[in-house]
């Protein structure tokens, strides 16, 4: 940690722009979606690294400047690459990731229904049994 880096962090941390509660909510949401690039897989909202503090200050400043959430996300993605975003944007390389849970859930539902249909003929005459 260089003295200059510490100073920058301190200066920014000492003067975070004042946000109203709604903006604060937005800032917090964004800070949990942007990765601290010098840490190991932590969002900037949960990191004490100097760079994370700087990045948080940038998020807050941009909110004050009236930029939208997606503009702020794009701002970071353009500078650090898509992997700065902890919610990976939908693209060719992440389609499988996002499709997976839904695909597996569908397969599971299909398996459930088909197993039931197979069993149905056998179970038509079943009587209930109390627990």
């Amino acid at each position: 940690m260089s003295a200059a880096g510490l100073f920058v962090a301190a200066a920014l941390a000492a003067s975070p722009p004042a946000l109203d509660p709604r903006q604060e909510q937005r800032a917090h949401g964004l800070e949990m979606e942007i990765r601290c690039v010098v840490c190991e897989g932590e969002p900037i909202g949960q990191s004490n690294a100097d760079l994370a503090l700087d990045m948080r200050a940038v998020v807050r400043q941009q909110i004050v400047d009236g930029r939208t959430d997606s503009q702020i996300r794009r701002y970071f993605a353009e500078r650090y690459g898509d992997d700065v975003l902890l919610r990976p944007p939908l693209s060719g390389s992440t389609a499988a990731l996002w499709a997976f849970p839904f695909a597996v859930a569908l397969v599971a539902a299909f398996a459930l229904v088909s197993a039931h249909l197979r069993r149905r003929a056998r179970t038509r005459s079943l009587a209930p049994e109390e627990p």
Partner: protein
Amino acid sequence: MSVELGHFAAILAFTLALAQCGLGFTAVAGSPALAASARAASAGALAACAVAFACLVAAYVRSDFSLVNVVANSHTDKPLLYRIAGTWGNHEGSMLLWCLIATGFAAAAARFSQHLEPALRARMIAVMGIVTAASLAYLLFASNPFLRIADPPLQGADLNPLLQDPALALHPPFLYLGYVGFSVVFAFAIAGLLGEGAGRDWARAARPWAIAAWCFLTVGITLGSYWAYYELGWGGYWFWDPVENASFMPWLAGAALVHSSIVTARRGGLAAWTALLAIITFTLCLLGAFLVRSGILTSVHAFAVDPTRGAAILAMVAAAGIGGLALYAWKAPKAADDAEFDLLSRESALVVNNLALTVSCATVLVGTLYPLFAEYVFGAAVSVGPPYFNLTFAPLMAAVMLLIPAATLSAWRRAALAPVARRLWVAGLAAVAVAVWVGLQPDAALGPVIGAGVGAWLVAGAVTDLVVRAGGRGFRPQALVRLPLRVHGAAIAHAGLGLLAIGACVELGFRREQMSPMAVGDTVLFQGARITLERVEADEGPNFYIDRAVLRLEGPGGPRLLMPERRFYPAANQPTGEVAITSTLRGDLYVAFGETLSQGDGPMRWSMRFYFNPLINFVFGGALLIALGSALALVSAVRNRQVATP
């Protein structure tokens, strides 16, 4: 001298485990003498492993710096508790603990299985022999803690100070009790598949082990999460970090296993599926060890990483997973499945529970490994963080939770909707009331509202379940006391899950934080409290220096002092933080002592981070209730392991 004794004992344990395996398989033919010697070998392996472990602990207590492992991880200034806990605070020592627990489970499973059919029992003991022999081989050939150093130094390098903590001293043993406990269930499944006996008897015998392992894993994960909460100083307790996910995947698969084994043990249904889950769960335990130990995924929790060892663990993952699944594919179609049930029935609800838990487990697995996949396949750097898991995992779990109250009140084989609905409308009202109440809070988002409602539905559903079983309108307290333990266990665990959901969702939606630069005498307002920095003082601990901030808090609940610390461990040359937490019914107020701010001239200022974590104790309390509920279910399952339930 005792180091060589320990080394020798570990080698002896390895050979005894091999003997246990060989004798077990030869005893399948029916020789009682061979079966007895296989059991004796498992007891001997446990005794030898205990001697090895005691020798390593003794080396740590004595600070024997002629051992590479002690030099790398200990220090004479360290308090005795952490010198002992340091034994398993590193890779080699933790592997010896793993072996001790594995031989312990093997010996216990061999001893307490006298009611099993002899061939199944012999096969199970043999498979446990393979598990312990593989663990001990890995210990001896890839991570030997008993290696001497030629030129012993006078002092050691110290254990990572973050790990010098009571919760973290207990976290690895509980986690390993969980991981290795599932190896017994795995051994039962393999033994059952080998002998074509994966039916009701198998499940009834394996169920106590599954519940015990799951209970230990629950406690282990909770301890780790609580440690992360108060030690890492970010106000969070769960980060969807690869290492956390590594322990969470077997937990999810284990939850599915614990529930599917109910159907197999009580109804004879889902026998093949239960065996499959047993194989998957233990494979995920090994995969978890691989992810944590190999350092293939970057993580904040990976404290003992060595890529060269990854290959050996990966081979074990492949052996357990591929071997187990191949055996399953070969034998499972022949497994008897004599249960018949309707789409609306308790069995069916448990099947849906299992599918949803399996899908969420697969989602966590894919989310955890996807960055590797994307890098190798697309050459693209992708980060998968909390937002992904919150968007995919949370809805799946909410769906499971919606089902639980209705499932516990449904009849086996064929249920009807009307009686269930008639019993649950009060719980439904309670859930809606809680959701509306949360929705009326300022800045409420949809996710927390739904989550809190679902959590309340679970808690109210668990209460309803107990009331209905204790007589409904003719409710009598004596009847409640006389209910079977498994009913109490299920209700307590489900209510705990509900509280956990409420706490997690409210905390996620309403946590607040504020970072304030403060000089001595400064006052800040946070969450209705006035907090004044009174002084910053220097102090010394047993093996660290302290900067302590003394803050006076005035607010609802009277004035209190909060004393967060920054510590510096000279031996490890590493700073850590100690947060100050004050708990109320509403939640925790949490202060972390941040960096010193150099502001040029003017008074010295420090960055103070304040967090308000509403209902956070519901999260930890709920998790402990899940563990308590499963402990009660364990007692019940032990009693029922051979008696057929009507």
